[in-house]
């Protein structure tokens, strides 16, 4: 379990991570999604105690990372596959890591076997291809057999075979009941591996929800309803257990309905005698919608909470 609480990181006047809070639960792959520069890597470095937060805290099973005893046995991480001395062999790299946490050398051979690097273990890591480096990084993450695993953009630059392998290993790790946090800037990639998503943009949390739900929303399986009797309709939809979000479109209050069909919404409206001005299905490509969310949602969120209904300045 990783708990991130009000995490903020400033570099001079730039805010890389802005009051970010979320939690990562065990037994599933959680995707950490956001465009490049959204603050994913910075957040991951702060989780590992490498960078010091300007404010806020991260707890790993209730403790800050720096207070963990033998941290490799609790958290395994692959942040950058190039963090290896090029003239050191893969085996030597893993051996010193294992020794730091008093893990037996046997573990080194085991993880090399797991990632399929046994044959090249004594070659210098500087000569490895990106795919091999990535495997070595994953071997390092698995070394202490940790409950929590973190991978930063693990499929970046890999060939299809490598991508498939990474997906499989992450899903296997989660099915063993581990906590897996994987970052990516590609929603399509996350849609294939992650069950849950933490979406950030410009250092702020945009949403934490199930991947299916997020994809439904982002890929246009949402229904926009405009009505002069918004309040009654919202109540009726809520009673049916349908999720509803408020939005303001062209200065008129609008409901965005998720996870149901337009027919169903129409029927409910008719049953309640609610007049509809618009009932439309919103469609768009996955990536487009994601871009829109991450680029604009920060603004949108800021306005939404405070001024729904009485504003019409932008959008």
């Amino acid at each position, binding site marked *: 379990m990783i708990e991130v609480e009000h995490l903020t990181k400033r570099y001079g006047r730039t805010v890389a991570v802005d009051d970010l809070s979320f939690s990562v639960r065990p037994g599933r792959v959680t995707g950490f999604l956001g465009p490049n520069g959204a603050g994913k890597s910075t957040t991951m*470095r702060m989780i*590992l*105690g*490498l*960078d*010091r937060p300007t404010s806020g805290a991260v707890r790993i099973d209730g403790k800050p*990372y*720096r*207070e*963990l005893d033998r*941290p*490799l046995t609790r958290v395994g*991480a692959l*942040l*950058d596959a*190039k*963090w*290896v*001395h*090029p*003239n*050191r*062999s893969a085996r*030597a*790299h893993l*051996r*010193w*890591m294992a*020794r*730091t*946490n*008093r893990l037996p050398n046997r573990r080194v051979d085991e993880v090399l076997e797991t990632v399929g690097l046994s044959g090249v273990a004594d070659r210098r890591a500087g000569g490895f291809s990106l795919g091999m480096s990535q495997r070595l990084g994953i071997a*390092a993450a698995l070394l202490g057999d940790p409950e929590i695993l973190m991978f930063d953009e693990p499929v970046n630059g890999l060939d299809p075979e490598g991508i498939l392998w990474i997906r499989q290993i992450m899903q296997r790790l989660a099915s063993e009941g581990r906590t897996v946090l994987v970052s990516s800037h590609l929603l399509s990639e996350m849609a294939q591996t992650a069950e849950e998503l933490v979406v950030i943009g410009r250092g702020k949390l945009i949403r934490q929800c199930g991947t299916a739900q997020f994809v439904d929303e982002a890929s246009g399986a949402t229904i926009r309803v405009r009505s002069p009797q918004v309040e009654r309709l919202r109540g009726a939809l809520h009673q049916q257990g349908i999720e509803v979000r408020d939005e303001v479109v062209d200065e008129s209050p609008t409901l965005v309905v998720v996870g149901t069909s337009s027919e169903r919404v129409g029927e409910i409206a008719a049953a309640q005698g609610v007049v509809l001005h618009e009932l439309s299905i919103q469609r768009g490509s996955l990536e487009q919608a994601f871009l829109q969310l991450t680029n604009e949602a920060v603004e949108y969120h800021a306005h939404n909470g405070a001024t729904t209904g009485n504003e019409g300045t932008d959008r």
Partner: protein
Amino acid sequence: MTLLAVERIKLFSTRSPWWCMVVAVGLTVGFTALMSGFANEQGTVTVGFTQFSYQFGLMVLMVMAVLAVTTEYRFGTIRTTFQTAPNRAAVLTAKALLVAVLAGVVALVAAFLSFGVSDLLATNSDLSLSGADTWRNVAGTGLVAFFAAVLSVAVGILLRQSAAAVTVVLVWPLLVEPLVALIPRIGQDIQAWMPFVAAHQFLFGGQPDSAEAAMMMGMSEVPYGPWAGIAYFGAISVGLFVVALITASRRDA
């Protein structure tokens, strides 16, 4: 102990420390052999004379100490290091200790080999390790190398870049300290309190040929004894190392 073992694996699983150690011994002993060989034709060779070349080895060992930490920053393995062992002060202390002990041992080997080679070549002189002064002169190089390595690791931690840190540890003892004496009126007094001058005073102070040695280093007489010299040198290197530890623990890896 675990951390020391880890640093040992790290250091010896790359090739450059081996080269540095071989070069350090080779340079020191080789240069001493040349000096003693030619000096033998002109007169007597003293114990102090056999150790004048210690600076060659020392510079190489300091470069080795700097690289032991800057390469970790260069290749990002410092992050892996801090990830596996979040207590940064402990890790860096283990690293400094290992490198310093190694530098000390290598310097000792070079010192005694230098003495032995001179003894063989200087047939006109009667070299012997008798008396505390001569022992300090030869064995003392180990202690000087130990503290010089700690100092170098500290510089490496603070600057994080190989080129910058190597420049500092070479230019400081070889150029800054000798040239500081050229400042009119106060130059000589300042120079007397430079760290490597103090280390030199520890090795050669209180000996018949200490003035000669001082001349070779282009330096002035110093107002303290040999043991005060090494205490001063040690205090500066440990002091700078503590500053480096505090800095490393506070900043982002």
